[in-house]
């Protein structure tokens, strides 16, 4: 039987990817952030997952406004890193796991999650930056990946509680897969940040720290946060944190904190990383 062994939560700031790609991780600006990633990389190497499911959002790269799926699951053999305006990131192609992804799709739909099936898609920094955060610069990513994109661009977006339930349904799907696979779920995005408008640059450390605490201490409080609460207190783009709740749902909401890292700033963003088992 396949099983979910842990969740890793991390911000997916594009400039973090650029710092890796351009060899700047030891620059004074980036060193404190990347030093904090080292224990997480060591943990992941030891955990050696067979498959990683990444909950992330597309940033207007694959999905134009012509169609906006709330949840979309990638079932392709591979996912090519996209050109987001600067040329594609020089990172390995992301290999998929079509067998588990296909099972996931079937299980989710029969479990009444009407997801969109992506038979072919590229992936942007929302997916590739977390891989760089967690793995550095390998010649090939050390595990196959199942991308699940969540609409956090256009309103209405799914609620945090709905994302949590999606995570629970992912767990149920994984546990009904016959092959003995060890799966880690990544929840990505956040933490507090706002990229647009006169309020751009908003950071709320106190709010972020409470959010990190309550991922284990009081998940119910987080599930009750509304969209307006995120936008007001964590910045308009801080809403990405609902994807962390999906990864928490994949642990059924009962988790132990294994590692935490928090650093301000990563470009416009408060960067957080959390490992839960």
């Amino acid at each position: 039987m396949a099983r979910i062994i842990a969740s890793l939560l991390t911000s997916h700031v594009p400039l973090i990817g650029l710092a890796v790609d351009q060899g700047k991780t030891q620059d004074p600006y980036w060193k404190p952030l990347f030093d904090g990633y080292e224990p997480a990389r060591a943990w992941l190497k030891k955990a050696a997952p067979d498959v990683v499911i990444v909950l992330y959002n597309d940033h207007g790269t694959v999905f134009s406004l012509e169609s906006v799926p709330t949840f979309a699951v990638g079932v392709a053999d591979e996912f090519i890193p996209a050109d987001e305006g600067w040329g594609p990131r020089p990172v390995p192609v992301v290999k998929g796991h079509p067998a588990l992804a296909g099972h996931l799709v079937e299980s989710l739909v029969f479990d009444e999650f009407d997801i969109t099936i992506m038979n072919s898609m590229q992936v942007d920094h929302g997916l590739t930056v977390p891989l760089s955060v967690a793995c550095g610069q390998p010649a090939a990513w050390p595990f196959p990946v199942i991308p699940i994109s969540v609409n956090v661009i256009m309103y209405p977006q799914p609620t945090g509680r709905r994302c949590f339930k999606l995570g629970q349904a992912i767990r149920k799907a994984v546990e009904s897969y016959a092959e003995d696979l060890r799966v880690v779920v990544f929840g990505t995005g956040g933490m507090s940040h706002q990229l647009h408008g006169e309020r751009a640059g908003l950071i709320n450390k106190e709010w972020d720290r409470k959010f990190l605490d309550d991922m284990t201490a009081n998940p119910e409080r987080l599930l009750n946060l509304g969209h307006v609460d995120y936008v007001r207190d964590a910045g308009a783009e801080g809403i990405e944190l609902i994807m962390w709740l999906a990864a928490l749902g994949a642990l059924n909401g009962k988790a132990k904190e294994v590692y935490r890292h928090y650093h301000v700033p990563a470009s416009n963003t408060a960067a957080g990383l959390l490992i839960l088992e």
Partner: protein
Amino acid sequence: MTKDDPFDDIPGTYLFNQERCRVGFHLNMFFMSLLKDENRKAFLADEKKYLDKYPLSPEQRRAVEQRDWLGMIKHGGNIYYMSKYGATLGHSFQFMAGAMSGVSQEEYAAMMLKGGRSLEGNRSKSEHN
């Protein structure tokens, strides 16, 4: 969206709701077209000719031509689509963020290094805090 939209109480924030999506549809489709290198080159070679392909409102067209980043947002632009236009002109998210909040990129970067923009005074229009 509704009459008493609670999001309207949040200062300096333009929620990308269905109304903004409707107004900004062609503007964002223009931005997104710049994901392709051939389109970036075509735009930079002849900006006016390229823009003529998109039915933008006069306000949107002016904002695009004048690199008025906040104006583009106010007229239905979405930051993530707009970032493709920024990238085409060689601008980072921090450059656009500085421009939208009315400071230079250097001043903006310095604010971020000091821990970012405080929530104090930026939380609510009605509560003035």
